[in-house]
């Protein structure tokens, strides 16, 4: 085994060696280095061919038309382009947007910016499992609503929204539906013929592609219009100017091609590993899975160990690369807003670990993880006054704590 063990695939994934090999073919003088926008010579034509091949590979994973794929720098840019671009373009029709409290910051911050510009945003509360229902969306749509933006899979707890059902609601109401799918490509089937999604944000680096490249799906039928956020040479049908990064795009194409061909076998294997991990940890006392365990991608386990603080737990787990919903991992003192929004109390939010499994995780690594987590939780509970109180039958929620 190599240490530390990587269990943070939802943060980013390593580039698959097959992807890296394709990318390396697009860099040097002897290779495919041309500007895909150069129309006057072979270097440009060859680069354009590679870019269009990759566009088709991405479109194939979504079962859509390649002309519906717009290259961007990643999901954050795609979210910005989709939300601000659509809200601005359709602002004469209305200025109301619907999203949820557990979206990625790229969505929430884009919405905040629109609020500053005079738009009104409704932030839906997920249910206790972390899911936004189509019914809730239907109830929240107003005559002046122009855009609904919801994630396919949540980045912290891995739960899945029923995009197909929500798409029916938004299409009927003639509202644009944007989906952030950064966490779902290669993990769930996506079919744009079945799903009435108008805009979909994609990124390469969580699906074994490189960082710095993503795409926005922009539906052609019925046509969706956007106000561009990046002005310049009019690349990508005017929606996103800037010279295309051939090697990045080729990497994303290859990564999505592999995702399509290997999704089923990858996920079956990953689900087995996740269940092995869960079973291994669940026989401890006061352990809680955060978010719906059934409507969740195979790769994700978000779990709280009551009476143990997440950062100290991660310190004990220095041989494991995991993340925590505890405040101390970030600059702010607030624990994860996602865990708070699904109703977790502060203690359980501070006590959470997110472990995300991927293509290169092994049985051996999972067994080691189980052993080390159990050891660390046991040790830290022996150190925890809250564990003492729990064992003495004291109800911690009834104590008047002085916040500091």
């Amino acid at each position, binding site marked *: 085994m190599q240490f530390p063990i990587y269990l943070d695939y939802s943060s980013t994934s390593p580039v698959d060696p097959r992807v890296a090999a394709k990318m390396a073919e697009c860099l040097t003088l002897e290779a495919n280095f041309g500007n895909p926008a150069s129309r006057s010579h072979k270097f440009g034509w060859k680069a354009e061919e590679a870019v269009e091949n990759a566009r088709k590979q991405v479109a194939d994973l979504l079962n859509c038309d390649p002309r519906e794929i717009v290259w961007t720098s990643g999901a954050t840019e795609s979210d910005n382009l989709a939300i601000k671009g659509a809200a601005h373009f359709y602002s004469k029709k209305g200025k109301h947007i619907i999203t949820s409290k557990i979206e990625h910051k790229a969505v929430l911050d884009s919405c905040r910016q629109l609020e500053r510009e005079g738009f009104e945003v409704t932030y839906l509360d997920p249910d206790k499992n972390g899911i936004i229902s189509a019914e809730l969306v239907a109830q929240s749509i107003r005559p002046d609503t122009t855009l609904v933006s919801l994630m396919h899979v949540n980045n912290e707890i891995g739960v899945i929204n029923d995009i197909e059902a929500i798409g029916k609601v938004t299409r009927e109401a003639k509202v644009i539906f944007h989906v952030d799918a950064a966490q779902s490509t290669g993990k769930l089937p996506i079919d744009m013929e079945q799903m009435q999604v108008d805009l979909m944000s994609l990124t390469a680096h969580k699906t074994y592609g490189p960082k710095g490249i993503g795409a926005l799906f922009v539906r052609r039928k019925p046509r969706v219009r956007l106000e561009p956020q990046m002005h310049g040479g009019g690349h990508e049908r005017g929606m996103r100017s800037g010279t295309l990064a051939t090697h990045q795009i080729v990497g994303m194409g290859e990564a999505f091609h592999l995702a399509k061909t290997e999704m089923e076998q990858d996920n079956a294997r990953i689900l087995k590993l996740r269940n092995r991990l869960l079973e291994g940890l669940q026989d401890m006392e006061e352990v809680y899975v955060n978010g719906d365990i059934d409507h969740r991608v195979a790769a994700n386990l978000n779990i709280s160990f009551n*009476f*143990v*603080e*997440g*950062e*100290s737990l991660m*310190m*004990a787990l220095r041989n494991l690369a995991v993340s925590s919903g*505890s*405040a*101390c991992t970030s*600059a702010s*003192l607030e*624990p994860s807003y996602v865990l708070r929004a699904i109703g977790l*109390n*502060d*203690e359980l939010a*501070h006590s959470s670990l997110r472990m995300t499994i991927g293509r290169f995780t092994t049985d051996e690594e999972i067994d080691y993880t189980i052993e080390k987590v159990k050891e660390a939780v046991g040790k830290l509970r*022996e*150190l*925890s*006054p*809250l*564990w*003492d109180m729990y064992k003495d039958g004291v109800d*911690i929620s009834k104590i008047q*704590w*002085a*916040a*500091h």
Partner: protein
Amino acid sequence: MAYSEKVIDHYENPRNVGKMDDADANVGTGMVGAPACGDVMRLQIKVNDAGVIEDAKFKTYGCGSAIASSSLLTEWVKGRSLEEATAIKNSDIAEELGLPPVKVHCSVLAEDAIKAAIADVKAKREA
């Protein structure tokens, strides 16, 4: 975040972990912090008739710096008079452990804990 060697040492080998009988009139307990903030410290001291701290125990729910701050404090207060222990400043703890600015609140909490424990034992003795 990178931890100092001293923080790691106290975290991996915490000194004086435990619990004393709160009913004992010579035992003072200071419990500070809140689970909602991610830190709870319980510091206990046992004081002899001469007013000297004979023993100290702690348990802490919190990050590595919070655990290290309380562990270090139990080492420092042992053998000191209540007055001497009162004089310990959070900045002394932060400096000894090399705490970064975002972790200074852990040392503040430790200072609060010893002050609370001292106040508790004084109140018990006067009662």
